[in-house]
């Protein structure tokens, strides 16, 4: 099983595909779950405290907005831990955890910096593209499994 970072990290489709073809998706939900299930200071709704933007300083400087640094405290460790990545490039309507374009640019950049297998796609727009989309992902994930 390979740890695959998915972008958008909130994606149902990618999360499902990665698990369906036998690997572990690294997604927003798993990062949020970790926050929600860890004791600390009360900070609803996401249990992200003002400490998280400070932890985010590892990936973005202090003049970068707090929201970017707070998000990076979720994604930074996942990007470091991932062994492969699937990126959907036209994910313009992923809100919440993927709601900040500047964070998203930084996430993609950091993933590109890593020397790991990576698949870049767009969302399918019709049935034909749906076949190509699933085939590309299946091929990518199967090869990951074989390489392992």
């Amino acid at each position: 099983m390979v740890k695959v970072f998915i972008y958008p990290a909130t994606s149902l489709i990618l999360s499902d595909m990665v698990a369906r073809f036998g690997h572990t998706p690294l997604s927003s939900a798993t990062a949020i779950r970790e926050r929600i299930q860890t004791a600390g200071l009360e900070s609803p709704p996401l249990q992200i405290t003002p400490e998280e933007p400070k932890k985010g300083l590892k990936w973005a400087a202090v003049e970068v907005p707090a929201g970017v640094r707070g998000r990076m405290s979720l994604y930074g460790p996942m990007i470091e831990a991932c062994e492969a990545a699937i990126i959907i490039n036209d994910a313009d309507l992923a809100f919440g955890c993927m709601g900040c374009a500047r964070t998203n640019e930084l996430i993609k950049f950091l993933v590109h910096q890593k020397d790991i297998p990576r698949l870049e796609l767009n969302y399918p727009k019709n049935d034909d593209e749906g076949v190509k989309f699933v085939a590309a992902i299946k091929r990518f994930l199967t090869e990951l499994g074989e390489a392992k």
Partner: protein
Amino acid sequence: MTQPVRIAQLSCGPEYSGIQHEIDEAAREVGGEIFYPDVALKDIRRDFTKFGLDVKSPDLKLAIARAIALVEGRVEADAVFIATCFRCAEAAIVRNELRRYINEHSRLPVVSYSFTERTTSGTLLTRMEALTTIARRRALLARETQKGLTLGLDSGSATTKAVVMRDNRIIGTGWQPTTEVIKSANEVIAHALSEAGVTRDEIQAVGTTGYGRFLIGKEINADLIQEELTVNSKGAVYLANRQHGPATVIDIGGMDNKAISVMDGIPGVFTMGGICAGASGRFLEMTAKRLGVEITELGPLSMKGFGGRVPMNSYCIVFGTQSLVNALAAGSTREDVAAAACHSVAEQVYEQQLQEVDIKEPVIMVGGTSLIEGLVFAMGELLQTKIVVPPYSQYIGAVGSALLASGFIKDD
């Protein structure tokens, strides 16, 4: 229990900056309730395109769609709170445009704020209180004349002020620097009462505002305890005799500055800033001290000078003062230095705060700093308008409180 005031939040980032609960708490403390206008994906797509501001962040697209849902009445709210990350240019553009859009197309009071991870509910409290007041107390804020015998007290960070009013006239005032909050309040009240020639027992209603409003309000059993944004707006248009139509109120205070866009005496959009002391009355106090003049003399002195002759490289209170000291050492006149200090404060308020409200004439300056004519002049130059400084402008909060408190006089 009364229904909470429903405050719609349009935002990007607070949950991820760890401050969403501070926003929720500030709202709750003043009887408000934060909620997120519900929109469907098709609304987001349609309204984002319709609005025409092509931003990239999905959460900003969502904020735009939510704003349109509020303005078009598809989602009901009493007030709007717009919050985005400090230092995000994309979000700042959206924040400004949404604030303007909501203000122009609805009667919803709006406050916008750019936060950092250090933002606390305390910093948001006055803004939230103003939002809930405007939503809940429109009837009270509609009052245009003072009646009976009332007392207003403004417990500010730098000075404490009191006025006694009778039948729409100011008959007693008191003013002194704030030292011990309650002691200062008692002393200015005693002074105002004695000048008015009345006793505390005769006063029919009392109102308090300013930083110390809760403490003093409890101490002197006030009928009205109200934040300074709505009170000062009311006081400003009352004293300037501009109770109808639009107006802009600027109050450069000891600790923070307020810029309020007013319609018929009720704030529509407002900002409160207080990040840098270099943009406050405090800086002018320090300048006066360094020049060896009383703060009251700084205004006339600066009117004789020309600020452009003094290089000011920083807005910071420490480095700004250093620039003035250097200028004096290099031979600049005291008049020019005084003018440069006034210009620096006016320019900083103009650049950092007045961009967040729509400037509509008349522009009314209030608070103690409005008596420094060099500052008023500098602001007028920047805004290209003649600034109105009403009589008793330094007592603005106290007058507003006394005026609004008369709504609490029980008819016998």
